């Protein structure tokens, strides 16, 4: 069974549910069967969060198998490392170069970066997407920029993402997010 998977990880409040909904919709529009899992409730209060989008001809499980995800989108570096067991050598990982502090814990960013360097996958893109988002004038656009970049590597046409953004996001946010998405696609040239 040929199933593709995008694993979204980050910190509660990062907008992972919305970002994964966009991908799930785009995959459906593109003709795939789709399953998606997400966790609500207690874990949303600033804890570790994850969501999976799995797509293919026919998908049963909404959650991933270790060592099997093709794509990972992480909004934070420690969280990316927390989920490495789900990656394979063929994975493509996009991680926002950012650390969200953990109450009562000192995090050594240098050692986190070194741990990330040791994760040898097909492609690992670590970037301060907040700088890109600020360039577009809105720090909340980080996820959509990452989605644009990620979409370049996925077997789903751009037009379906465009349609999915319109479907998932409220009307007042659509134009700016479409803009951020195409900005993300353009970024992919830097990582070809």
């Amino acid at each position, binding site marked *: 069974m040929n199933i593709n998977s995008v694993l979204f990880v980050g910190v509660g409040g990062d907008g992972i549910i919305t970002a994964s909904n966009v991908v799930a919709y785009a995959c459906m529009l593109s003709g795939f069967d789709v399953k998606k899992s997400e966790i609500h*409730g207690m874990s949303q209060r600033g804890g570790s969060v994850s969501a999976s989008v799995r797509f293919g001809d026919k998908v049963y*499980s909404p959650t991933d198998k270790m060592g099997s995800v093709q794509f990972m989108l992480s909004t934070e570096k420690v969280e990316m490392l927390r989920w490495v067991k789900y990656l394979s050598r063929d994975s493509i990982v996009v991680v926002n170069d950012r650390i969200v*502090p953990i109450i009562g814990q000192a995090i050594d960013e240098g050692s986190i970066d070194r741990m990330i360097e040791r994760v040898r996958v097909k492609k690992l893109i670590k970037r301060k997407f907040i700088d890109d988002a600020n360039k577009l004038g809105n720090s909340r656009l980080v996820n959509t920029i990452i989605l644009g970049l990620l979409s370049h590597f996925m077997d789903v046409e751009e037009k379906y993402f465009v349609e999915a953004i319109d479907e998932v996001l409220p009307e007042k946010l659509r134009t700016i997010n479409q803009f951020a998405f195409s900005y993300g696609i353009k970024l992919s040239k830097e990582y070809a």
Partner: protein
Amino acid sequence: MGLKVIKKIINGNQAISIGAYKGNARFGSGYPGTPSSEILEHFKNYPNVIAQWASNEKAGFETALGASIAGTRSFATMKHVGLNVAADPLMTASYTGVNAGFVVVTADDPGMHSSQNEQDNRRYAKFAKLPLIEPSDPFEAMAFMQYAFVVSEKFDTPVILRSTTRISHSLGVVQFDPRTLDNEQNLKLQKDFRKYVMIPANAISRHKVVLDRLEKLKLFSNETPINKVEKGKTNFGIITSSMAYNYIKELLPNVHMFKVGFSYPMPIEKIREFVDKLDEVIVVEELEPFMEEELKIAGINVEGKKHFPYDGEFNLDIVEEGLKKAGLIKEKTTKVIFNELELPKRPPALCPGCPHRPIFDILHSLGKDIFITGDIGCYTLGCLPPLSAMHTTVCMGASISMGIGASKVQNKQKIVAVIGDSTFFHTGIQPIIDAYISNANITVIILDNRITAMTGGQPDPGSGFTLKGEDVKPIRIYDLVKSIGIERVYEIDQYDYESTKKLLKEEINKPGLSVIIPTRPCVLEPKKIKEGPLIVVSDKCTGCKRCLRIACPAIDFKDNKAIIDEVLCTGCEVCMHVCPIGGAIVKKEGK
């Protein structure tokens, strides 16, 4: 009208509400609880339906049962532990049966993503002798919910529909005709003394009706198409249900499978036939060996929990491990290349600006001679370090009653009970009456943020609006508690840190019962509250870390100084009040 098919990607809870509407349900009630809350929130949007939150699951269940007897198809929703609260009407509604179709939806939480236990509510179906239906994905959640109303009326019984976190909160592609397919039923309110008044004389004869119904349901379970064989190519077979079905389909796409959708009573004869043709049959089910036990009692040769865990949520890796242990697969299909790393855990925390924070900081700082009985809500997070200010959490409403007990048998520790507003309305009112009547020596803190916050901001009786968004006069907890006769009742603004601390200290040390009601609203619901942020004056900060002890996600510590994230900070000023250095934390200028 022509067929109008909608194709959407929806989660299990939305699917359940669509199924309810298509199944002609026009009344829904319940109490919010992860992972069940979105069912009613979605159902309320349909035309001509009544959807309302009840103050607890028992009340929600009974409201829906009343609607059923009055002639309208109805349902009640709750999380697994909510059915414990509604167990009283559940057990006897089995005897009364229904008039219009009546379904109780229980959303279990294997893995305890957001719960205090992981009880398997399939046990309730057997306990109450009620039919149990279990979908395995959003499409089935919709279709089975609709079907549940048909079963309910056909057999004159409440039906239990069981979801789990992974079904309620997973999305799948669902195609459906949005119209109601069943013929509109106009049932009349039913007055039937022998059926609905469960005095012993009537209940004795109704119990026989229940037993007779169970026999009929056993036959039906063998006939219903939601219990089905999926033919494969193996000489062994798998019996499975609910989410586990998906893991098996993915790991063993060619297996002989018996998929159970109607899981109580079990389709014994149909399964006996299935098992007889195979060399070996394994039952794969999450949590309890519910199906396995039923099959073994019937003398059918199967195994299950010998190979699979009793606890925790299943996933592809756990199920694959079990199949390997059972000898049904030789090797795992994927290798783990990157091993789990040692990383600091990221537990959930109270939000920046959360009005619960100053209360727990004060309770923590008042020292070791206080025993704090807690309750269920966001504020349960007050138990985690560094706040570490909660010593018990058992179930909804237990804070006050456990506090009464603890206060009666010893006097070395002062007792403080902490409970939220929604939990107070749920099951805290009776215990506070007990506290008054028994003259308990406790301080009760009712954290009144006027919303059910943890489950996503559902209104409670103190919110001033309903599930449908209609305005309603809120119940003021102060007036309610005063009316009992309790004398020392205080409403306070807990952002006024010093006065709050002074009052708490005084009341905790005074004998007798007092009730303190901090009244700051939730910072997230119903609307986000954000005022100008605070900043740390770096020259003045001594790096004492006192502000870190309030566990605010907006405060970090770098280069021996505290720093405040201006995006996260809501300007509540609690850090400023606890800071021992005057002027080290200040409001950002111009804000």
